[in-house]
């Protein structure tokens, strides 16, 4: 049985009731992992409270930080500061330079692009080639597809169709996430998979993008963040204690 994950559930952390109801809803809809974007200034108590809420709803929690750097240097600075504090690092690419730097940096997990300004979607062949070498994924949020109407949605679907084809050609993993800010925009994983047929992503790839790809990213990062991790393929098996 597939374990589904929603890597971008945008819960309003200041509203405890709404946060709890959205996490419970995610669990009811069949997700076993939710990833909640957290401000870098958040305290450890707030994170542990969030983990407690997720435990009650029987859903796993992964912490995520959304970076929106203005230039490549700012991106590198933010990565140095936050990479070891969060399980998922997503970069919203506002400029081409940032997009290229994010695509080639192995510390970046998810590449995000604007859904309203399509000129700021820089996912082309060069970007895909860099991303495929650095194991970063292309993140596609599905809430905008539900919320946009008429020409805005048509243009977005057309753009996504091209990007998905490019990603598949260069073997860049695709991660589908809800990007939901309320319960109204939350759907079951199979419903999201059906929605992706609108931009010609095959159902099998869509299900992989909702289950396998996000889990691989989260598990890889959890291993890297664990105290026993030394380098890729090398980990501490046990420690000798001298009597």
């Amino acid at each position, binding site marked *: 049985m597939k374990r589904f994950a929603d890597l971008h559930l945008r819960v309003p952390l200041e509203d405890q009731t709404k946060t709890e109801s959205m996490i419970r809803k995610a669990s009811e*809809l069949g997700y076993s992992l939710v990833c909640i974007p957290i401000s870098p200034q958040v305290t450890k108590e707030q994170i542990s409270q969030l983990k407690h809420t997720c435990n009650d709803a029987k859903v796993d929690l992964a912490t995520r930080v959304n970076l929106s750097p203005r230039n490549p240097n700012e991106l590198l600075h933010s990565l140095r500061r936050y990479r070891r504090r969060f399980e998922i690092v997503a970069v919203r690419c506002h400029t081409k330079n940032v997009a290229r730097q994010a695509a080639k940096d192995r510390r970046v997990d998810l590449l995000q692009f604007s859904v309203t300004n399509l000129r700021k979607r820089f996912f082309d062949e060069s970007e895909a080639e860099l991303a495929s070498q650095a194991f970063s994924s292309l993140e596609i949020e599905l809430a905008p*597809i*539900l*919320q946009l109407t008429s020409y805005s949605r048509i243009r977005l679907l057309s753009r996504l169709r091209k990007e998905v084809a490019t990603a598949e050609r260069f073997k860049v993993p695709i991660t589908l996430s809800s990007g939901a800010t309320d*319960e*109204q925009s*939350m*759907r*079951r994983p*199979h*419903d*999201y998979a*059906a*929605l992706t*047929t*609108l931009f010609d992503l095959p*159902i099998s790839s869509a299900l992989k993008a909702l289950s396998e790809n996000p889990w691989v990213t989260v598990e890889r990062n959890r291993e890297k963040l664990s105290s026993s991790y030394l380098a890729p393929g090398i980990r501490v098996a046990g420690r000798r204690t001298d009597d």
Partner: protein
Amino acid sequence: MIKREKRRYLAIEVASEQPVDKQTVLGAVQASVIRLFGEYGASKTNLKLIKYVPEKRQFVICCSHKMLEKVRAAIASIMETNGESATMHVVGVSGTLKALSKKT
């Protein structure tokens, strides 16, 4: 001999503040199919409302098996019915009503 068209039965759960009736649900699904795939696409879906199961609060509709994913996409993209915000979730899909009632 003309081959019989295969169907898929879908159980739909509606989440809305106001109670909705069968015709509203079918109308919303049809409108969504037309919005996404046009009249030509809608003509291929063969959408029909089968029944409402009050104890499970589920509506059962059927469609052509070739258009299943398109109908699911249309159902997922519904954000309102009759001007009120509402969402629809497909809770089960099957080739027969008997199997569907076992699944949901």
